[in-house]
């Protein structure tokens, strides 16, 4: 037998169910960001699990945006190399900033997984 309860987890990893904190609950996900999920109880053990779908979606969004930016940049560079000049496209600095911003975003996300 086991019991499943709706629960939440705060950014410190503390799980709350039925309105009371359950300090002995083990968080199976990362628990570094507030989330809503389920607490599974069996005998004296309680474990919390949240959906990681939003984490995955945010990761994929950032990776897709970064790769798109890289592809756009490389396309622009390639276009500039077909003529007599090899000067980088004027959009390159902005593209590099955008890609680096995505790297920062992913790093932050990595440290704040639910």
């Amino acid at each position, binding site marked *: 037998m086991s*019991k499943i309860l709706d629960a939440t987890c705060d950014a410190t990893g503390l799980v709350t*169910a039925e309105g*009371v904190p*359950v300090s002995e609950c083990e968080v199976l996900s990362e628990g570094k960001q507030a989330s809503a999920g389920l607490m599974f*109880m069996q005998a004296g053990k*309680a474990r919390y699990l949240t959906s990681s779908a939003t984490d995955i979606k945010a990761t994929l969004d950032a990776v897709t945006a970064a790769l798109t930016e890289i592809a756009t940049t490389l396309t622009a560079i390639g276009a500039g190399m077909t003529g007599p000049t090899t000067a980088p496209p004027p959009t390159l600095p902005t593209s590099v900033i955008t890609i680096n911003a995505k790297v920062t975003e992913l790093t932050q996300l990595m440290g704040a997984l639910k």
Partner: protein
Amino acid sequence: MRLRCVHGYFKFDELRYGQVSDFMNLTGLSLVSVGDHFTFESLAEAPDFSLTGLDLLGVPAIATFEGPPGEVFRENEIVYDFTKDLVVPIASIVRPVEIQQAGNQFISSGLILPGSLTAAGKKVTDYLAWFSRDRLSWSYSEVAYV
């Protein structure tokens, strides 16, 4: 009718049709059907889990635990006091009880209140009791203490 007191939670089993209604008529105590057994009305909503600090039938739970009501009672050190119609900490029960062996069974005056203290200073936690409609009395085939 058979009664199992499991760590202060009560499970009545009707072994013959009409025993529950007979019991209620004779004792004035109300029983309700829960799953595969009957229990006291106040225990009908006994939960199958507890969370430390969460209300547990009027008592704050002291354990986070999932299991049948009897095990939840054991983990939270509570019993049902049918004399007060309340769930209370087992430590609060100080009533003495005398249990005597009579052949292959035990006898005691009336229904044993879980948590009662034997002469040896042990608390009754579990028992298997049989209600006699003819004698309006209980006999016990198993009694456990802590």
